């Protein structure tokens, strides 16, 4: 870990509480080879326990694809997108947000 910090702007929205979505900025220590998921984990573990992103069953290794979202406006997996400077993280579909970066599933595949 270096002393360097980067700004991570995260889309926040809890429809039960918030009138409208907003962006929250966190300062996260940068380390070589970190991903957007590394940054989210750092925020959750050290800065803000209320942040919601899919990880209760995530793989963090690019296999399950549950962490799909938008990184600086571009679709990708949070866990396999390298982070080198300030970034903005958003859900895959803002109109289907359940909370923050979590979107509702299409009708459950029962």
């Amino acid at each position, binding site marked *: 870990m270096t002393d360097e910090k980067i700004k991570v702007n995260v889309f926040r929205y*809890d429809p*039960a*509480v918030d009138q409208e979505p907003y962006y929250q900025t966190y300062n996260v220590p940068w*380390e*070589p*080879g*970190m*991903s957007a998921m*590394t940054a989210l984990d750092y925020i*959750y*573990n050290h800065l*803000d*326990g*209320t*942040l*919601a*992103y899919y*990880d*209760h*069953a*995530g*793989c*963090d*290794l*690019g*296999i*399950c*694809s*549950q962490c799909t979202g938008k990184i600086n406006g571009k679709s990708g*997996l949070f*866990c*396999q997108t*390298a982070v080198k400077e300030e970034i903005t993280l958003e859900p895959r579909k803002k109109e289907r947000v*359940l*909370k*923050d970066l*979590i979107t*509702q*599933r299409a009708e*459950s*595949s*029962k």
Partner: protein
Amino acid sequence: MRNVKTIETDVLVIGGGGAGFRAAIEAREKECNVLMISKGPLARCGATPMAGADYTLDGKSMSKIEGLTGDPNDSAEKVFNDIVTQGCYLNNQKLVEQYIKRAPQCLKELMDWGLKVKLSDERMIFTTGTGMMNVLLRKAKSVGVDLLEDVAVLELLTHENSVVGALGLNVLTGEFIHFRCKAIVMATGGWHKAFWPNTGMRDLSGEGIAMAHRAGADIGNMEFITFCCNTFYAPPMWRGSIAPYIISLICGGRLTNNRGEDVLKGYDSFLVEKGTLTEWNKSFLSFVTAKQARDGKVFANGGLHYTRGDASWEMMELVASMVFPNWKYKALDLTEWGRMLQENEPVEVGHAVEFFEGGIVINDQFETAVAGLYAAGECALGTFGANRVFAAITEIFTQGADAGNNAGEYAHNRQSADLDLSALKELKEKALQPLTVSKGERPAELRKRVQRKSQRYLGPIRNRDELETFLDYLEDIKVSVLPKLSTTNDSRTYNKEWMDALELPNMIQLLESSVRSALMRTESRGVHYREDFPDTDNDNWLQEIIVKHDTATFQLNQRPLTITSMSPPTGVTPYLDFMKQMMEAHSDTGGKH
């Protein structure tokens, strides 16, 4: 309290990995309604999708399947000998026989259902974990298994020592679900989340074993924990990936410490050969790595440097082209590592928790001590004894199929019982507690602390002082921290802190039973090495350790082994000498197993 949905089924399968799917498919054959609950996304959670994945069976049976290799001189007897010696004789030999007998049938079924085999050797076929899950999902849907995803089961409900249902939680919405059923198959895998780093998905927190234990099932051999060697420790984006393990197993390579020393220098050459180029590498190399770490000879992340060394680049390229073509596996891009290997640049690797030999005590019908409760796969105790070399993937199918069949038969002619609504109310209130406690302990911080301590005190090398320190810590957590876990806000919608708070007591419960078992086993065997008892003691320790759950405490007892045809040796032998003897006892069939 909000209105809670009740879902009725005949057989409830808890766990959405390979064992759960296989059990659900088989139970459905018994004309039962079957519901399988997956904690994460369907077919993309649990350990199975993360597997390499190899499926092992006796080579002779394999050689009869069109398109597969298989050594025709291999036999069920040879495989039995190998699994039992690899397990250092602690295996339940009845379950080993079941594994060997059912493995060829289960593989043929999978291929009939559409599984593609990438390559095969003397007694192993290689495919992908995600490929297996896709086949299972398709099959489960086609036979009418009901499926639920993103649902965690919190507790089992029993009446007069029989299962009658369970309490679940929709992780996304935070709504409780009541399940009413006649039989349950537990297929929840291991408890990787109690350690960091690990090779498993983030959902594997061991609640299946823990809740079965609380419901009255025994658990056993909890001290045996396999660490995969040579997993990436850095960079963060690759951490936990087993890619270097796969390449080093097939091609070799070089491991050096922070002083530039070859860490395998000084070990017996036979031990090094079998302990690097067969799947004994997990126990042997993880032991070596842990020793380096304890001697302070590791790099910044606690690992060693892995380089290509004298291994051939052409061979590595060839293996990579088959296992992860173009140095990519799904979205994991290892192109840069390919370049580093070619140019002999180091990556930091080390041991990460991978497999739990112990688990829920079952008999050879996959029944537990609770009527109607079955267990299959990694969450169950028995097949692999003190050390697993043969594939765990095979076991999820052989055990899943038979456990599902037996649970279906059990449920078929039975009436379901009424749910005890007052007991459910109590359980829900308890589950909601972290949302209402204010100014308590942060669940995320506790999880990180526990994970670090597990890695340090319950790794491949243990001793009494450290285990006792860890036990004191866990007891303190249980009494003074768990009741005070609290979330920042009381939102029930995807509240990660709430999930952490619900998972942590299960992990603490399993860690405590594991540490107590490791303390009790005053010898070294398989993946359990005690610095203060460095010998394998076949005169006193050819015993299982069974943990019973009393309301407030655990009772540990020894249980005699289940032996069918292979008598264990006697005498006391230094750990690595006994490991070498077990390697030497291997049959003449080649390959990695």
